[in-house]
């Protein structure tokens, strides 16, 4: 167990270092002067005085060598200080923590919905392998992959907000405002989860211990409940963790369309505005959380499949 935790801790540190440095470099490897971008994000318009660029650059410490700037940030983050946003000059933590809470709620809701839908669909498709039910479920859920969020979201707004008037079209003010963004985000995971559960069920049903259980006198439903379904669900835990990590920073389209004040939108704006401390703070939190969630998923996986335990060493 200890080597596993040590390895995961090292992964966490490495991931934070690499991702934060990559984010740090983005403004310097994209066209245009980052200081001018910061100014334009505060005061719209095209004309910028060179003296203002110099003054702001000096004030933000952006004239220091890049490596000095990066290690200065690293020193602060090691003490828990995320610093001030270049654009708003407010503490980064005050912006990223509320946004993270919103995105966590949204992603948790979307994945819970995806699991709730894909579990029965995947089980039925797996147990009815090759039959019409399997074909219908598979083709419908696979079609979700081809539906981009920027297409699904307006469609859902059209139906549920404009035509039926049963749900709000946007905002983040209560459980009802979570439904459409969560549903939009859930569609692609539903597709992948259903496919994984289906495949897991087919593999589990074909395993040797199922006929053995039947030979011990278990009925078909009992054998399915005790052996096929639990084993068929094993791949799902890992998949949910991977999607959770991916959606933490990857829900920007849904957040923009539904005006959700979440992490994806915050990170996108931070990168567009060359707000390096804000982008770095956000990425550090997202990456750390992603590593923790996938680690947790490994523990769950281990609990469900003791045979995997050896691989942790």
């Amino acid at each position, binding site marked *: 167990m200890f080597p596993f935790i040590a390895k995961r801790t090292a992964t966490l540190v490495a991931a934070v270092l690499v991702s934060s440095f990559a984010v740090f470099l983005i403004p310097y490897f994209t066209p245009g002067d980052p200081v001018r971008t910061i100014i334009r994000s505060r005061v719209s318009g*095209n004309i910028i005085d060179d003296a203002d660029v110099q003054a702001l650059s000096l004030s933000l410490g952006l004239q220091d060598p890049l490596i000095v700037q990066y290690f200065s940030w690293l020193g602060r983050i090691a003490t828990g200080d995320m610093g001030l946003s270049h654009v708003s000059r407010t503490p980064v933590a005050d912006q990223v923590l509320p946004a993270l809470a919103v995105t966590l709620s949204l992603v948790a809701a979307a994945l819970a919905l995806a699991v709730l839908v894909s579990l029965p669909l995947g089980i039925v498709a797996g147990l009815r392998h090759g039959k019409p039910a399997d074909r219908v479920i598979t083709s419908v859920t696979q079609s979700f992959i081809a539906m981009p969020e920027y297409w699904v979201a307006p469609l859902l707004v059209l139906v549920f*907000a*404009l035509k039926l008037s049963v749900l709000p079209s*946007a905002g983040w003010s209560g459980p009802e405002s979570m439904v459409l963004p969560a549903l939009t985000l859930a569609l692609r995971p539903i597709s992948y989860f259903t496919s994984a559960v289906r495949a897991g069920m087919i593999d589990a049903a074909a395993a040797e211990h199922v006929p053995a259980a039947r030979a011990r006198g278990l009925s078909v439903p009992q054998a399915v409940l005790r052996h096929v379904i639990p084993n068929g669900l094993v791949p799902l835990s890992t998949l949910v963790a991977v999607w959770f990590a991916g959606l933490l920073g990857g829900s920007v389209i849904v957040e923009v*369309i539904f*005006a959700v*004040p979440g992490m994806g939108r915050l990170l996108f704006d931070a990168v567009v505005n060359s707000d390096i401390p804000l982008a770095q703070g956000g990425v550090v939190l997202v990456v750390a959380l992603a590593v923790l969630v996938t680690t947790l998923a490994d523990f769950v996986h281990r609990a469900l499949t003791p045979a995997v335990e050896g691989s942790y060493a």
Partner: protein
Amino acid sequence: MLPVKRSRPILAVAAVLALSGCGFSGGQPAQESSAAADTSQRIVVDNFRAPVADWAVESDAAYILSLSGCLETLTKFDQAKGEVVPSLATEWKQHSPLEWDFTIRDGVKFQDGTALTAESVATALNHVLKATVPARAFNSKIISSVSVPQEGTVRVTTPTESPLVPYRLASVNSGILSPAAYEGERTNPFGHCTGPFVPVSEVAQQSLTLDRNPDYWGGDVQLAGAEIRFITNGATRAAQVQTGEADISMSIPAASLSSLENADGLSVLKADSPRTATLYMNNGRAPLDNVDVRTAIRDALDLESLAASVYEGAALPATGVFASSEPWAGTTGEAPKQDLDGAKKLLADAGYTADRPLEIIAIVERAEFADVAAVIQDNLKAVGIPVSIVTKEYAAAEPDVIAGNYDMLLSQRNRLIDIADPAGFLSADYTCSGSYNLSHFCDPEYDQLLAKAATTVDPEERYSLYAQAGGILTEKAVNVWLVNEQATDAVRNNVLGYVQDPLSRYVLTAQTAKTAS
């Protein structure tokens, strides 16, 4: 919960309607219900931007504070009259060529209960002057100092004579907050404005909630409160006003116009905005250094088709450098008509040889510019000018454009981004020493007109000089001004007293009201 005043609603609505009918302000009033205002109503406004710079008054966040009825300025620009009118200052006069004195209105209190004084005004304006990222309209290069020469008077001193100081004090970036707003590093508008609405809570990146200011100096406030939502996606703003979740949605995108125009219970308002999509031409590089070639390019373009197709009616063909409704537009007449034969003749007279394709840079920040460039490419091909198109972020294109290493650029410019007068735009963009002279145009006669306008106090006379300057730009075909964009807002029909402001500075006022249904 703040006490709700139910005071004279019918009289107030009548006054609002009368004022709107008299052209009290610019833009278009919404189609209003005949029902009476219900002073217990609250209103939801979907705005297109969120405050990215906390609530710093020198930043664009000031627009949100202003449109939400919190932040007020010493003067206001009346769009319909085309002039500056009193607000927190009752009058002003030029004390000396470099000094303007503003008389501060008596009896005004900040929402924290302290009195508006000349000293508090000077504190607020000096805070803006010290900003690291300065405001365009009010900064230390334009304003030397702000002082209090005597009780009740604020003196604004400029480094050179400027008739535009009252205009600068109408800019939202010179809004006045009480001194307590500037304690600490951050600007805190909560409880520190003078306007009809008091900000009470904020959800970061989402909304600002305001309640009625029961002690507003400008009369009874007709709404109990408001919520300003920050919704950057245009389609979402359109959907919210259509469902009734929002009462007013600002800046409706072209793609949503037809559905909203056919929807029940709301009106779509349009007004000329000071934004013109422009085909910048490099007047300093062959072949575009030849006025005949530039004129031929203008004549080759079909602006009416462009406005109708790419812009889906959300923009009008441009008649010149100004929108025709602007008070300084002069007699601009109609938009140039496509004249392919004339264009070919001009090219032949200029000795134009299509020895290389001209490059159009279409900036990606405006998604429609890729289509606009394609239309232009097609139009110019018809007169024998080969064109290649590249798409770039503005920041990537800017260094080459300013250095003069380009042929043509598709971009858009707000003429009134700093103040409600085009002096800054005309000077920066088209004078020989202009700091943003992308066209690399230089004409001494034009510069003389601008220099004269810079010291002309009388607006009529100044506007006439701007019109003459605009005439030179048209005559020399410096650029092709393609389409004037329309400011488009959607308003539910139970909203009363809403008058559209093309610059989105004034949305909620004491007179804005709403009926019960």
